[in-house]
């Protein structure tokens, strides 16, 4: 069985920075695996600006931010395995990897989980009606538009005013689509003020607070949704062919299930799978700190 000192799961900002810092601490073997075909995690699909002000002191796009860290990976003493998924972890400090290289176990001394988040989906809400095509999570729509150059729809409603919802509302406008508005259950915008301004106000996209979606219509493709105004209780039907859901992020810790849901002493969480960060700069900073500590620990210099 292949043996490494440190296994890092996830090649986004957190995983890369942690792996780099650990490898920088001295002669430790570090293996980083990611299920995507490239490094960067979620960053390559975030083509808008606003990244790096805190860490690189520059206003960068997601791909630019990722590229700066990827550049450091080249030449660093970190082995990288892409297109590779960690299927499970065991108490004996082994991981089962599945990728194009096959299906293989890896033994490790320390583990850093940098698995990011997944998005809450509409299935978790009490939304009734049909289950048509045209309902996408914000991240899914973002990947379709920015990475695949697909156009999911034309007449769009966004449910949820977190940052991802705001950014995607603007993204659809920039794609030439009609964005009917961003629907928010709470009384105010959920995202950062700067995103509210640059995404909604500047593009005259209405924010509908104290409102939610209660029903989907359309048997093949989405034809509309029923909105409920929470204060008045009134409902109205709105025609649209696309509903983008930005319902929040859930730290992705599914791998811990195999360990009884507990975090063992030899494992650490890092980045958004630890807690959801507002900006990536703090992810990088936290990951570097953790990576350094783990590296020192592995070298016995604690």
């Amino acid at each position, binding site marked *: 069985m292949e043996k490494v000192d440190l296994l890092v799961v996830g090649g986004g900002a957190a995983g890369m920075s942690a792996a780099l810092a650990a490898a920088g601490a001295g002669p430790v073997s570090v293996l980083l695996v990611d299920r995507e075909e490239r490094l960067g995690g979620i960053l390559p699909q975030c083509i808008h600006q606003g990244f790096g002000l805190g860490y690189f002191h520059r206003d960068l796009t997601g791909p630019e931010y990722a590229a700066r860290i990827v550049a450091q990976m080249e030449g660093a003493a970190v082995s990288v395995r892409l297109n590779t998924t960690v299927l499970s972890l065991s108490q004996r400090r082994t991981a089962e990897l*599945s990728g194009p290289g096959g*299906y293989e176990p890896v033994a490790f001394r320390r583990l850093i989980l940098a698995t990011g988040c997944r998005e809450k989906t509409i299935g978790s809400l009490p939304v009734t009606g049909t289950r048509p095509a045209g309902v996408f999570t914000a991240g899914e729509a973002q990947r379709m538009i920015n990475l695949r150059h*697909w156009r999911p729809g034309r007449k769009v409603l966004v449910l949820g005013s977190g940052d991802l919802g705001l950014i995607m509302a603007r993204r659809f406008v920039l794609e030439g*689509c009609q964005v009917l508005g961003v629907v928010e259950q709470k009384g105010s915008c959920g995202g950062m003020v700067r995103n509210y301004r640059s995404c909604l106000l500047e593009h005259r996209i209405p924010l509908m607070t104290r409102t939610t979606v209660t029903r989907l219509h359309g048997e*093949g493709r989405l034809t509309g949704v029923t909105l409920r105004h929470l204060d008045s209780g009134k409902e109205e039907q709105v025609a649209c062919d696309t509903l983008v859901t930005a319902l929040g992020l859930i730290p992705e810790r*599914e791998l811990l299930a195999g360990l009884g849901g507990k975090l063992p002493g030899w494992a650490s969480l890092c980045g958004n799978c630890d807690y959801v960060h507002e900006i990536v700069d703090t992810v990088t900073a936290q990951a570097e700190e953790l990576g350094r500590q783990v590296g020192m620990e592995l070298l016995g210099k604690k």
Partner: protein
Amino acid sequence: MERYDVAVLGGGLLGCFMARELRRHPLKVALVEAREDVCTGISRANTAIVYTGCDTKPGTLKTRLCVAACKGFGDLCRELGVPFARRGSLMVSYGPNADQTLQRKMIQGMENGVEGLKLMSGRAALEWEPGLAPGVSSALYAPDTGVTDPWELCYAAWENALANGVTPWLNAPVTDLLPEHGGWRVVTLRGELWAAAVVNCCGLHADQVQELAAPPTVRITPEKADYLILDQGAGHYVNHVIFHEPEEKGKGLTMVPTLDGKLLLGPSEQPGVGPLSATTEAGLDRLRQLAAQVAPELDLELTIRSFAGVRPKPYNVVRAQSIHDFTVTNPARGLWSLIGIKTPGLTCAQALGAWLAPQVADQLGKGELDSTFRPERKAPVRPRELTREARAALAARDPAYGRILCRCGGITEGEVRDAIRRGAVTLDGVKRRTGAGLGRCQGAFCGDRIMALMARMLGVPPEDLQKDGPGSRLLTGGRHGEG
């Protein structure tokens, strides 16, 4: 015009098994389906339960087929490579009225020939199922109740039918049935075929299809029901299939620990208003209320999806009365209709085919068995079910079986490729064949990856891909470079 011995109309569970069972005889069989794929109608949404046969009246066709089918279900699933588990079921009551119902069903079940039934005390039931609300007054245990994968079962029957020479007529909605040369001219939107006999298995539309050629005998009312699915983990909340027998009139809660570790709640019966695939607030609220009542510790926050299923409720228009047995009509020579086959239709799909096929074959003078018929179908490769060594060897042979496309279900690119090769042409067709997109992320991670793969393999632009049949395009914003 292509000529067949038998044209089976409808590619749901009934039609696919009908076609397969007909091929045990030396018959040339066509399966005519309106949609682009099989398993797109009412077979698509149900509880996945294989019933023992203690719920139905003694002496009926339904009971006879159900009891035998349940006993043989393990063999059938082994033969066709379909997952199946005898979870056993507990029917639980919370009061004297329901206690009586349980006793009645116990006696009825024994009379029907169901084995192993046991009436238990409420306390004993709670020991087996500590997640149930306290106060269970009695329980009826049926060890043979099973859970299967209804989609896989339908695809298995279909693939086995094709392997035995059944000719597929997909995308062929039937518009007319005309008597001709002692048989039937079947007119479809894809062209015409002639068959000496026609077996109508058109589910919700079986009455309309029969009435193309014969006077009405049975009419169907769609009966809608809502279901909730809770994420992996919730499946451990109960150890058996639970049928809650309510004390008052109305439907209780059914809880099904599915084969992939999820928990299915439902059905909650609703009048058939609105689109048939639409869930209702009243239906879902009722399920949540019942769940809170019967399974108080169950975390409904684990809900990942709700869906609506439809069953065809038959009504005899000649005698003006509702029908409780399976209805198989023979309204004209060489024409049979299976109308209003609902619960336990999944359990009995193969049995109905095996029961009717010899009758059809006999009438065509071809009742003998065809020695070339092969009943086995090889299950698709599912790496997550293999041993480590076998899995490693498989991935080494074909790297696509190493690449995970659906993280929630641990489903590989190899399985998705295989599903497309086996006939999936829509995203939901891939989902039903592989399970990709059924997990907690509901396809948010794998959806576009599968679409890209489908577009490549099917040789179509992604903009042409449908979610679930005509009118359900996934990308409607036009292509890049266009307006």
